[in-house]
């Protein structure tokens, strides 16, 4: 083919390609899913979950447009307008992270499916499925405690009336994992020192539970301070506590948790939005270690465990 004709052909092909691309984009735009991602707070775990959510959808070919909203940016009196704005976009799906965002959107988005993630105990706070909860089952925790702290036989648990169910669950899990649960219920937060005093005398470690009646900044400070004194290791609620002085904690893989939520969302989408899924527990658990605390408490942590840990503090 003469050179001139070859050039002209090349130009025509390039133009057709770009036209196809544009057409695809146009058509794709028409066929894309619009998902609102609403975060309760701008914290790392929520961001990680949101990232996992988006990546999963992208990898699986979902044609999505994601619009992020941070609820903590708005004041109480602005929420209504924000919610209206979200709903006005007529999303195909609303993905919420955290109790606050989930409760708000579930209350207002009547016609749009809402999938949540990162809610700790959904039925306790009135959150409805579908969604991926954040709570790691106690049996999982106990299995890991046995692996990490083989010498621990008795697990202390300080709870309040609002977390009595957790105590019951712990008793059951302890039975399954051959742990004795030393529990002490608090009447009020001011009883914590005494309760700790009592429990720490009997238990090999203290397991923190997500009960704000029992654990708040000062009580946690007291707990960690006293645990040093009494050399009683604390199983923290998250790696933040391990960093602050707990020995070990069990965390979700927040990114994977987001991906889990994305899976759920796709299923709902495939189902036409009617899938009435149950709560899904996180499938990946990781733990954090504080070697300095372990050293101070004369607790030997095997290297293999250390290598397995998701986060290690106090190297």
């Amino acid at each position, binding site marked *: 083919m003469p050179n001139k004709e070859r050039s002209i052909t090349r130009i025509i092909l390039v133009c057709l390609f770009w036209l196809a691309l544009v057409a695809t984009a146009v058509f794709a735009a028409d066929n894309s899913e619009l998902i609102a991602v609403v975060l*309760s*707070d701008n*914290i790392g*775990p*929520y961001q990680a979950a949101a990232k996992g959510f988006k990546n999963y959808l992208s990898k699986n070919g979902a044609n999505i447009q994601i619009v992020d909203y941070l609820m*903590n940016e708005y004041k109480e009196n602005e929420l209504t307008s924000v919610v209206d704005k979200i709903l006005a976009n007529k999303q195909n799906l609303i993905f919420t992270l*955290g*109790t*606050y965002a989930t409760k708000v959107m579930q209350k207002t988005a009547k016609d749009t499916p809402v999938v949540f993630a*990162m*809610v*700790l*105990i959904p039925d*306790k*706070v009135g959150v409805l499925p579908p969604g991926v909860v*954040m709570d790691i089952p106690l049996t999982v925790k106990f299995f890991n405690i046995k692996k990490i702290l083989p010498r621990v036989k008795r697990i202390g648990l300080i709870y309040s009336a609002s977390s009595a169910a957790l105590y019951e669950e712990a008793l059951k899990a302890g039975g399954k994992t051959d742990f004795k649960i030393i529990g002490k219920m608090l009447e009020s*937060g*001011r*009883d*914590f*020192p*005494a309760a700790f005093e009592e429990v720490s005398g009997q238990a090999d470690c203290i397991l923190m539970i*997500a*009960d*704000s009646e029992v*654990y*708040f*900044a*000062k*009580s946690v*400070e*007291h707990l960690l301070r006293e645990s040093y004194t009494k050399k009683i290791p604390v199983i923290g*609620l*998250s790696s*933040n506590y391990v960093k602050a002085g707990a020995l070990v904690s069990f965390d979700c893989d927040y990114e994977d948790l987001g991906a889990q939520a994305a899976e759920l969302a796709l299923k709902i989408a495939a189902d036409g939005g009617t899938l009435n899924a149950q709560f899904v527990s996180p499938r990946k658990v990781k733990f954090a270690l504080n070697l300095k605390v372990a050293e101070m408490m004369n607790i030997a942590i095997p290297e293999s465990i250390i290598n397995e840990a998701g986060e290690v503090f106090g190297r």
Partner: protein
Amino acid sequence: MKIGISQKIILLFIILVVILTSSIGTFFVRRERSILLSEFDQRSRILLSSAATNIEYPLLVGDLGTLNKIGEGILKQQDVIFYSIVDKEGKVVLWGGAEKEKNARKYSASIISERQSGTEDLVLGSQMKETEEIGRLYLSLSINSLTQKIKDVSGAIALLVVIGIILASFFINLLVKFMLGRPINILLKGIEKISGGNLGYKVPLASQDEIGELATSFNKMTRDLQKTTVSVKVLGEEQKRFQDVTRSTEDWIWEIDAEGRYIYVNSVIEKILGFRPEEIIGKYFYEFYLPDDKEALKKEMSEVFSKQKEFKNFINRNVRRDGEVVIIESTGLPQIDETGKLLGYRGAGRDITERKRAEEELRAAYEELKHTQAQLVQSAKMASVGVLAGGVAHEINNPLTGVLNNVQLIKMIAEQKNNFSIEEFKELLNLIEESALRCTKITRSLLSFSRASKGILQPVSLNEMVDRVMVLVEHELKLENIVIQRETADNLPLIRGDAQLLQQIIFDTITNSKWAIQKKSQKDGGVIIIKTSHEPGSRFINLSISDNGVGIPKENLERIFEPFFTTKPVGEGTGLGLSIVYNIIKEHNGTIAVESDPGERTTFKITLPVVAAV
């Protein structure tokens, strides 16, 4: 009490320094006080916040032991004198220290308990927290130490201010004294010297600042002042001289402006016109002219003014206050500025009324005198004519005798001869003609001599005048055995004179010479030499008449031209001859001098101006 400029400046500076340093000191004291207070407050609040934070949990859990420990720790903090912990109901849970104390500042803070708002917030460490006030912490801190610190700081600053003032004052004093006081004193000294009269004094300051410039300007000023003083002195002297002159002079000093109004007159005007100077000032110069003369003089002066010319001896008639007319002779000089504009005239005037009157009288007297003189001359001439008469008669008699004799001879011949020709009588006729001409000449001379002078000066020939007189006197002198030698120059320039008077002087001088010769020796006779000459280029011609008569004694030489002076016996002369000669020569602008050797000779030397020289 006199305060010098240096002291004033120093005082001013000190006041400024005091104000400034006091202000700065006050500012710093206040600032320090504010800082200390602020630090106190900040420290107190930090303590309060820290204590409240520590108290939160023990209060929450009712841990009195821990609260007590915290309380004891609080009381040990600097300046804390009291604390109290109150629960949310307002009930005092714990307190310590002494509450009531003066000079204490009170602080309080809420004791806040924070809880995560949600369970996952508890797990995730979210910032969404709920807070609850569970009590209040009250602290009282004594400000005694603060007050003392403030006092100490204030004292230190005050001390610094005082030291600063003292040092600044000291240095300002030094600086001002050196930089200002000393140069000013040098300047003052210079002023004293100069005011004492030492205008040549030079201020010894050469600093490169305003004082140095002032000194330089001052020195220049004194140099100029020196010049000006001299000028002023000279001016003063000139002014005094002027004032003395204007006061002492009899002349009227005046000045008018360009319009002709008087702007200055001296006091003499009152004597002249009867008006005081202040009555003249502002009036036009022509207001005092005689009304008949006013317009003409005004016009004449206007022409002079327009040409900006000076005028001299301007005669003008003015009317005095009493109505009398005074004649003023004025002289004026124009005053012109650098642009050529006429500013006015200055001059002087003199009352010449008396002078004019005297001139008139003098003129009249002169006329009278001239008339008298003319009469005298004529009388002398007539006397001379009288003197001449005999000689002239004799002079005429000879030629007439000759005429008669020759006519008689011709008559006789004519009677004796019947045939005779004119040729035979030609010689006799020639003799008759010659005699008749001689008579004519003599009579003409006599007529000319006797004619009264008309007083008209016109070009005449001196030689001719000599000739005319010779005609009259030659014969008689011959009879007296007096020889006339004539040495008259040829081409003698004409002189301007009166012919009759000139003949008179020649005649009278010859007559005087004749008398002198006769007095010496009547028998021996003598010689009269008449000489005329002219030196080339001279304005005068010379006439000398010498005789070898009796001469003139030395003591009489000076008097011979005095009227009525004579050495002739009474009846022989009036003594007017030579005085008339003298006067006539004077009238002709000539000179006469006499030289005489008594007993030998006398020479009258006369000079008369030639026509061009008159």
